[in-house]
């Protein structure tokens, strides 16, 4: 390996040209073949039973997510102006290419089925705009007495009316999203128009997240460049280090384009990873070079670079391999984007390693060593840093029990915090509490059943099972009970049609707002509904054979706690239903998101444990010592514990983004440990004095680790100013993890090294043998 690197050192121009050419090829490929994946369904494992079932149910009952447009008039909606807007907006939505005409529901499209003295009346609420006082009052009365509309399409205070446009997942684009928002806006005044619903939340998230990243990343990179410049004190070194980061990112995304894998949202964290890792390699290399030049000021560039490679290639390879392995463990995940994330980040890490070992030396050979003047200034500083590092190491050992005690307390608090961690699959919670989308959602939830839906699918093997009054009464009971939970606004199913028909056929007598008593009557009501209403609606709640039922619950929140609360209450009916041979299942996008989040987290825990084991094995192998392997994992264990503990204590929920952070912290945390242990081993080898070795290592690796942590922490703290909360959490957690990893490495791990007398016996025995 070293020989190959030395050979390459002789052809720096060639090396540079080859790398630049390859990078150019990747850039071209990226330009031609990069696409974003915005359909969230594509993230879910298609072969997971819960998703297969849900997809199937979505097809059976034509379950779709709805865009909700609310029109509010503080003076009430029953005036010609507002009613015209509702009508016109309905028509505009129906004409939208992405929306099917039948999928738009509003007061304008709804059928008003009412009982009359001698029968039944099926009429639109209005076609022409009512203008006279009497006509407006008549419409108001019609709405008020129809419980399938009142509280569902018109709010109970009669100031808001909603239009619901159901759309397929695959039609949603950024362009469509902004078109809908503009359409809503164009109807403002004096009415206020609100646009909400899951597709809008997903759309806003898909827009805001990357847009915010696009704005923040240049600032992050700028800050990192600045700090690198301050720490490395050389423009050349900074440029070479950043080139490693840039090239490895380009190669990774270029490879994605080559194998035709789209960019998933989680992939936006790949550059984050590569910045942290690429910078680390560069800092350790240049830091070593600096120290070498201080002790050997006369050394030429070939000699210095040669020494740098000789001393540093091993830890650079070791850190890269352990980090890559940590990411490859994500292959155990059932979620494809996460698998890809693991593989491609691992590839990026290995690419960064290659550039660090080949491109940086070639760069030094081509552009020369950092200026001597700088080194002189630096050497003055170094004596200071020198003494500081040595002093620090000395006092660390002196007060080791104090340090360990403090760590123990912090870990104990963290473990308590970990028990408070909760999982959240909510999309809405990713936004600011006072953002327009959250306020709109709250406004609609206040006035209507709820913006989030949960579908309960009931299935029986018997044909006509859901014409049985006994079963339907049970369903109705369950609906009422679940509706009594605060977060559940309303529910809707076959029972509601039947109760309505029963009441209508008894001249609107409220006492008949019940499930009809005989299966024949139920069948006949359904036949009547098919003949006079819109039968398409019926197949959204049951099937041809009446052996399946879809009950839709409207929830006022999409967070996991709310969904689970509703699920738990529904499941108390499981026994009752299975006694009647009815099976219960769930479907819909909210439920899928819940299952999906669980799946990610379970996978995350598996891969976390697996990568820990692999890291121990790898380190034991590399250092030929199981003790070293175990000691190496100490910083990451501390980091993981504190990371989860802080999340629990601060109430940051585990979500897809924050869960991935644990893999990232292992990846980064292990690097510090590897660099430290490797340098310590070298020093032990030379000095054979443990205390001195620790001090020297603190001076050498400790210094580089501080630099590394400082750069990445400063860079990612910038994300705290992000407008998108998940990006803020990412910035905060990366910074926190870098800090604890760094601190854990230079304190607790060092103390344990000293306590366990790592490599002490081996060196001693070697010395004796020699």
């Amino acid at each position, binding site marked *: 390996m070293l020989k190959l690197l030395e050979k390459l050192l002789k052809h720096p121009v060639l090396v540079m040209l080859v790398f630049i050419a390859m990078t150019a090829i990747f850039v071209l490929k990226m330009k031609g073949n990069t696409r974003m994946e915005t359909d969230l369904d594509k993230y879910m494992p298609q072969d997971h039973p819960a998703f297969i079932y849900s997809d199937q149910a979505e097809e059976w009952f034509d379950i779709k997510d709805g865009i909700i447009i609310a029109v509010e008039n503080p003076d009430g909606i029953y005036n010609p102006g507002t009613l015209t807007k509702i009508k016109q907006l309905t028509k505009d939505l129906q*004409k939208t290419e992405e929306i099917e005409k039948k999928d738009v529901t509003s007061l304008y499209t709804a059928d008003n089925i009412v009982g009359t003295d001698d029968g039944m009346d099926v*009429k639109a609420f209005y076609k022409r705009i009512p203008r006279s006082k009497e006509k407006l009052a008549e419409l108001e009365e019609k709405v008020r007495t129809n419980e399938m509309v009142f509280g569902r399409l018109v709010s109970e205070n009669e100031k808001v009316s909603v239009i619901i446009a159901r759309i397929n997942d695959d039609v949603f684009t950024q362009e469509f999203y902004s078109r809908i928002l503009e359409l809503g806006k164009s109807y403002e005044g004096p009415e206020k128009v609100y646009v909400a619903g899951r597709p809008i939340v997903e759309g806003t998230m898909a827009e805001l997240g990357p847009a915010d990243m696009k704005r923040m990343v240049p600032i992050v990179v700028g800050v990192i460049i600045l700090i690198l410049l301050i720490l490395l004190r050389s423009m050349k070194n900074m440029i070479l280090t950043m080139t490693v980061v840039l090239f490895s990112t380009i190669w990774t995304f270029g490879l994605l384009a080559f194998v035709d894998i789209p960019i998933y949202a989680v992939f936006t964290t790949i550059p984050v990873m590569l910045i942290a890792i690429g910078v680390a390699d560069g800092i350790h290399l240049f830091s070593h070079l600096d120290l070498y030049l201080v002790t050997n000021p006369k050394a030429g560039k070939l000699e210095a670079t040669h020494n740098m490679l000789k001393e540093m290639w091993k830890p650079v390879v070791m850190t890269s391999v352990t980090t890559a392995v940590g990411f490859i463990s994500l292959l155990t995940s059932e979620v494809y984007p996460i698998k890809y994330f693991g593989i491609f980040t691992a590839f990026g890490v290995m690419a960064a390693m290659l550039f660090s070992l080949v491109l940086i030396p070639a760069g030094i050979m081509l552009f020369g060593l950092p200026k001597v003047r700088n080194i002189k200034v630096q050497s003055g500083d170094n004596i200071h840093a020198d003494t500081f590092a040595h002093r620090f190491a000395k006092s660390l050992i002196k007060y080791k029990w104090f340090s360990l005690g403090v760590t123990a307390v912090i870990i104990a608090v963290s473990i308590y915090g970990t028990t408070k961690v909760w999982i959240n699959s909510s999309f809405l919670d990713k936004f600011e509490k006072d953002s327009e989308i959250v306020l709109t959602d709250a406004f609609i939830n206040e006035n209507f059943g709820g913006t989030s839906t949960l579908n309960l699918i009931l299935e029986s093997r018997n044909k006509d099972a859901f014409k049985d009054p006994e079963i339907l009464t049970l369903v109705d009971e369950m609906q009422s009970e679940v509706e009594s939970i605060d977060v559940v606004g309303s529910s809707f199913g076959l029972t509601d049609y039947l109760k309505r028909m029963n009441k209508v056929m008894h001249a609107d007598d409220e006492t008949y707002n019940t499930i009809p008593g005989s299966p024949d009557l139920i069948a*006949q009501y359904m036949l009547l509904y098919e003949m006079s209403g819109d039968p398409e609606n019926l197949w959204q709640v049951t099937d*041809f054979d009446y052996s399946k039922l879809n009950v839709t619950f409207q929830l006022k929140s999409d967070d996991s706690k709310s969904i689970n609360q509703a699920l738990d209450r529904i499941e108390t009916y499981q026994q009752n239903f299975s006694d009647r041979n009815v099976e219960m299942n769930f479907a819909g996008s909210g439920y899928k998101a819940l299952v999906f989040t669980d799946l990610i987290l379970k996978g995350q825990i598996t891969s976390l444990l697996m990568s820990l084991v692999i890291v121990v094995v790898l380190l034991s192998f590399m250092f030929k010592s199981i003790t070293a392997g175990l000691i190496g994992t100490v910083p990451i264990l501390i980091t993981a514990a504190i990371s989860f503990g802080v999340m629990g204590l601060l109430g940051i929920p585990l979500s897809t983004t924050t869960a991935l952070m644990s893999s990232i912290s292992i990846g980064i945390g292990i690097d510090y440990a590897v660099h430290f242990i490797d340098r310590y081993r070298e020093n032990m080898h030379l000095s054979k004095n443990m205390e001195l070795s620790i001090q020297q290592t603190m001076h050498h690796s400790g210094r580089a680790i501080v630099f590394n942590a400082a750069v990445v922490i400063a860079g990612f703290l910038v994300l705290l100013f992000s407008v998108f909360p998940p990006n803020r959490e990412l910035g905060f957690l990366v910074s926190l993890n870098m800090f604890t990893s760094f601190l854990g490495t230079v304190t607790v791990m060092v103390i344990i090294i000293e306590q366990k007398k790592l490599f002490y016996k081996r060196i001693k025995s070697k010395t004796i043998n020699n």
Partner: protein
Amino acid sequence: MKSILSFIVLSSMSGFVFTQDLTGLEVIRKVYERPVGDEMTASLTMTIENSRGNQRVREIKQYIKDFGDVEKKIMFFLSPADVKNTSFMNWSYDEPNKNDDQWIYLPALKKVKRISSDSKSDYFMGSDFTYDDLGDRHPDEDSHKIIREEVIDGLETYVVESIPKDEDYMYSRTVTWVVKDSWVGLKKEFYDEDGELLKILTVDEQKTFGEVIVLTNVKMNNVQNNQFTIMQLENVEINKGVPENIFTERIMKRGMK
């Protein structure tokens, strides 16, 4: 004759649009006015099959009599068992803009109820046919144009494109293959408001009773949701006498013997 002559003359001068419009309307008018008999009894079997292959079959006995300004129809459900003896009566008036009168008898409720509905594009009993598709639509409601002539199943047909005058109508256009001489619409395509093909109607069997042609097997295939409906008529009797006095609530309850 005059119009055919002018058609020939004008078409060679390429300014034939107006005349052709007229001819298209004439073809559709002939279809609309084709004799169907004043009285009819038949057993109707309606089969609806959705995209997953689930089927629903309903058997109905129907009696129709044309009283000149009003056409009365009474239907009795024979199966499935849970709707047996449910009956439905419809009075359809020639007078434009007058809504049909409809009644239903639900045996489980033992009551006849009047239904009034203002929607004409409603689907007929949950099938893929709307009331309009079943032949109720007046030729004057659309603009018609012969777009070509074609031979299908060995029969020469005019292919007529009809565009509704009402922009908000559920179809943006329909195309009908009308058999020359017999004026039977053998096939019809329905396009939705986005101009995409929605449904295809085909006639798979027709029988002649005197001068009346009855379409005894028609299929409506919805190509967008992959559902289809077949209406099969059996035991057809044309002009064999349907009593005037059966179109009452009493008969709806009691049924025909």
